């Protein structure tokens, strides 16, 4: 398919350096269980879990170790077999400090194995219960509990499931490798979700820089025996950041724009990340909770880049040790992708269910310039996928008038960073946007 005819979103967007060449061809490698894991009690949107196990309790891999009784929640399972050391504070890439359940692993335990059952025997309710019991959350980064997303309020009419395989963040290849190596599970997971939602149509949106993933999925779909019940198609998309943002993806795939302030289900669509879809398959068919995931370890600052299958709670430091250490010119460590990920100040940070990558960037790969006044070039306005005016927001914030920026649509901003990427004055526009959001919230409260 030629680049001209590829679907994409209609406004804004950028083409950052892809940086995927370091890991896109590397098969997923299983990292042995570390000696200790730290499980954040809140790895999801909703109420934090509470530990269900006492200090010194013996737990086995996959065992439920933390939960909360009511509300939006996602259960937590032991990612190793071992002994509970208790709840301690651990550094968190986004919130600073957070409570984590610490388990020290018994050496020489074999990884638990699971065997699939025929999931078609389960009813909708049973499917949802199995997903809920496995603690599946949105693995693209949002961490929204999957069972809640798939529990559709009565009266909502859906027609399309979109699987998000765009992986538009530079450097990340975990979803890519997942689609290549676990295409069958992704398609089965899609069928499970379709059954829950009671619809037939599923489109898998994938940026065109992953031809092997597109080919593999197409092959699996064409060989699938249930073509009559489900209509699953692969939609190759133009390589354009932020193609994997839900709004941009929905518009690229269906042409429908989600109005601000309503859920995607209001326009008939549910979006799930491909990895979440695979986790849903694991939960339903294998009864396997979500406690390990593929994490892309990349950048020129790590000795050996890899797509690693790691236990949730593994420390970044343990990953570095496993991969032979960092290079001397390492300058920045980012949890997530280079566009929206979080820079961390230490390697002593555990990975969570939503960590898609850890990047080790060298001085040459990062920007360390100080910023200058806005010269009104308008680059930020032309690349904003939401049609906002980051230039004006930044000037208002600098003048101490962040609360007056609602007129520029600050609420629509999802911090994709396209504006800050193109800014020739190197202004930290994402930070200005965040400050503006905060100022508006504070002004509304008072």
């Amino acid at each position, binding site marked *: 398919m030629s680049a001209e005819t590829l679907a994409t979103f209609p406004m804004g967007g950028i083409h950052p350096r892809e940086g995927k060449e370091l890991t896109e061809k590397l098969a997923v490698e299983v990292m042995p269980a570390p000696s200790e894991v730290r499980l954040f009690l809140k790895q999801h949107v909703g109420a934090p879990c509470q530990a269900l196990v006492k200090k010194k309790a013996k737990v086995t891999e996959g065992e439920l170790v933390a939960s909360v009784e009511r509300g939006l929640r996602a259960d937590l399972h032991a990612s190793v077999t071992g002994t509970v050391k208790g709840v301690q504070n651990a550094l968190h890439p986004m919130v600073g400090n957070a409570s984590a359940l610490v388990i020290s692993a018994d050496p020489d335990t074999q990884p638990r194995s699971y065997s699939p059952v025929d999931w078609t025997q389960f009813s909708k309710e049973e499917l949802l219960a199995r997903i809920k019991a496995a603690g599946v959350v949105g693995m693209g980064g949002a961490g929204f509990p999957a069972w809640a997303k798939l529990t559709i309020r009565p009266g909502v009419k859906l027609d399309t499931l979109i699987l998000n395989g765009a992986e538009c963040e530079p450097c990340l290849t975990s979803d890519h490798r997942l689609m290549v190596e676990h295409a069958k599970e992704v398609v089965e997971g899609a069928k499970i979700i379709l059954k829950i939602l009671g619809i037939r149509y599923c489109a898998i949106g994938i940026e065109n820089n992953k031809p092997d993933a597109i080919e593999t999925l197409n092959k699996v779909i064409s060989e699938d025996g249930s073509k009559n019940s489900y209509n699953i198609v692969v939609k190759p998309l133009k390589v354009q950041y932020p193609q994997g943002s839900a709004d941009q993806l929905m518009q690229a795939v269906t042409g429908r724009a989600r109005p601000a302030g309503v859920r995607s289900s209001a326009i008939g669509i549910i979006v799930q990340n491909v990895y979440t879809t695979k986790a849903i398959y694991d939960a339903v068919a294998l009864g396997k909770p979500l406690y390990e995931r593929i994490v892309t370890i990349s950048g020129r600052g790590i000795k050996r880049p890899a797509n690693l299958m790691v236990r949730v709670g593994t420390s970044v430091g343990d990953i570095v040790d496993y991969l032979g250490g960092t290079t001397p010119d390492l300058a920045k460590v980012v949890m997530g992708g280079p566009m929206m990920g979080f820079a961390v100040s230490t390697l002593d940070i555990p990975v969570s269910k939503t960590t898609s990558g850890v990047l080790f960037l060298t001085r040459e790969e990062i920007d360390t310039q100080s910023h200058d006044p806005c010269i009104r070039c308008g680059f930020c306005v032309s690349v904003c996928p939401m049609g906002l005016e980051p230039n004006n927001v930044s000037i208002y914030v600098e003048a101490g008038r962040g609360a007056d920026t609602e007129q520029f*649509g600050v609420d629509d901003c999802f911090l994709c960073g396209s504006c800050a990427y193109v800014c020739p004055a190197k202004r930290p526009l994402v930070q200005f946007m965040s400050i503006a959001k905060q100022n508006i919230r504070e002004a509304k409260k008072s």
Partner: protein
Amino acid sequence: MSAPLAEATTVEGAGEVMAPKLFVSVSPHFKSTVTVSEIMWTVVACLLPPLILSVFIFGFQTLIIALVSVLSCVGTEYLSNRALKRPTDTIKDGSAVITGLLLAYVIPPGVPYWLPILGGVVAIFITKALMGGIGFNVFNPALIGRAFLVATYPVAMTSAWLLPIRDASVFKYMGAGVDAVSTATPLYVLKHYGIAAVIERFGALSVIYKDFFVGWRPGCIGETSAFLLVLGGVFLIYKRYITWHIPVSVIVSVAFFTWVFGGERFFAGNPLLAVLSGGVILGAFFMATDYVTCPIQKSGQLVFGVGIGALTVLIRLKGGYPEGVCYAILLMNAVTPAIDGWFRPKRFAPQSEEGAKK
């Protein structure tokens, strides 16, 4: 300016190996390599060919005038920032150099060498530094510099024109009295004596088009070579530093309004002559496109460009000056904040009722 990056301090524990010092900053962690100074110095590079050619058209003194102008602007930038207690390293970003070049480009080639010093001080200190420095000026600094000089030294600014040199003797006008060599610009001749006089003085229309396109005509130092200016402008468009909207709308509207109103009857004006004379091409590609003083939205830029074209033709035909590009751009600079208010980007899907096509 404030540094967005802080070098994280890692504490060395007893007996532990010291962890690497890591940078932390807000996302995104990848940024494009384009910087303000890269854009500005590229513009400077695109402006140099017309200056080099001007040496062969009007003589070596154009280079001296340009140098004086640039030094005046850069020096004023440095001194103003010192006086206003701002960082002085902005002289390295190239923007004052552009102002200096553009100021020289809109000055006649026979003016005294000290004249651009005054223009440079007004351009940088009053128009830019007092407004808040780079990014905060309302008007194009170089054009305010020119407008100031036209008001204060009207004789030099409106009569120090030189006939193009045809024999490569680039030192011909050095030290020569301006009165001895001065001539009239095509626009002056056209305004006061009509198209027949232009043909009589500058040759048949086909010769005029060719000469004017290359640059061999009386005029300001850097405005005469349509060819080299378009070449530089197209390079800036190719680099995506500017878009076609402003240059094209300015040039097309000057041509259109001249065609309609510029002749002895309606629809009898000469659009090509209008575009190739005066500062239309220089203004369209290098002055109206100044980021700081032009609208941001493409639709707003089209309105801005057509406004410049219409005002240029109005001043040329009805005003006291034969040329109107400078004042047209300055007037539209004043309208830019309003245009930016009228033309806002189209939001993705702001209202909850609209947007859902289904």
